């Protein structure tokens, strides 16, 4: 595996055509670095769910990734409505998605739980009315 890599993608709220391209690019970066495919999949799933949440619920955001020999760290930070009750938001099945979002297949309230299941460390913080920061880490075994 090549040593380390770092980069940033910009996310635009309500842009459902570009949606998924940041996590898609991150997936290719990890593949090119030689990260094992099972680990790439976990990272790509977590990044996709976080990217979609920013696109659906926020005005704009960034996804920053940082990969070393030990870990993959991804931070998704957005400006938007924020989350009032994090514990509630983390509950499987809880969703505030409006109807037009549900028609696109989102709003089952499983995105945040999916992220948590696929990562080793998960942090979610938010200031209501300002924005949300989600950070996750996936450990890379040293071989």
């Amino acid at each position, binding site marked *: 595996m090549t040593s380390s890599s770092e980069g940033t993608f910009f996310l635009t709220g309500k842009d459902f055509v570009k949606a998924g391209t940041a996590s898609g690019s991150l997936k290719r970066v990890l593949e090119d670095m030689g990260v094992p495919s099972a680990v790439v999949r976990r990272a790509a799933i977590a990044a996709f769910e976080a990217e979609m949440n920013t696109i659906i619920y926020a005005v704009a955001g960034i996804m920053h990734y940082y990969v070393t020999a030990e870990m993959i760290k991804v931070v998704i930070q957005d400006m938007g409505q924020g989350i009032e009750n994090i514990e509630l938001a983390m509950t499987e099945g809880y969703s505030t998605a409006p109807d037009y979002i549900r*028609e*696109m*297949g989102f709003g089952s309230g499983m995105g945040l739980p999916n992220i948590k299941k696929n990562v080793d460390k998960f942090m979610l913080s938010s200031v209501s009315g300002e924005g949300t920061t989600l950070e996750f880490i996936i450990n890379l075994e040293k071989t």
Partner: protein
Amino acid sequence: MILQQLVDSLSLEVLTEGADLMRGVSGGYVSDMISDVIGNAREGQVWITFQVHLNIVAAASLKGLSAIIMVNNRRPLPETLQRASEENVVIMTTSLPAFDLVGLLYDLGLRCR
């Protein structure tokens, strides 16, 4: 089982150009919710859905699904088909409603778990 066998047995219409129908099929999953598929579908399964939006391609690709099968003659949006071709995601459609399609897939031996 491979995709070609499903296409032949159930007269599915393949919509993505140059689709690899030699791909194996390990089972099936039915859902219209993206995060449900991401959380619960398994690699190699066919995904039966009513959804046609672009985001289904990302979900199928992330999970390494064998193909997406749309029911009730639903057709993907043009941008969905284009993204699917780029990401090697196979999309098919059938005039059958989901209930009947799943019954036939089950008869062919496919399972979810």
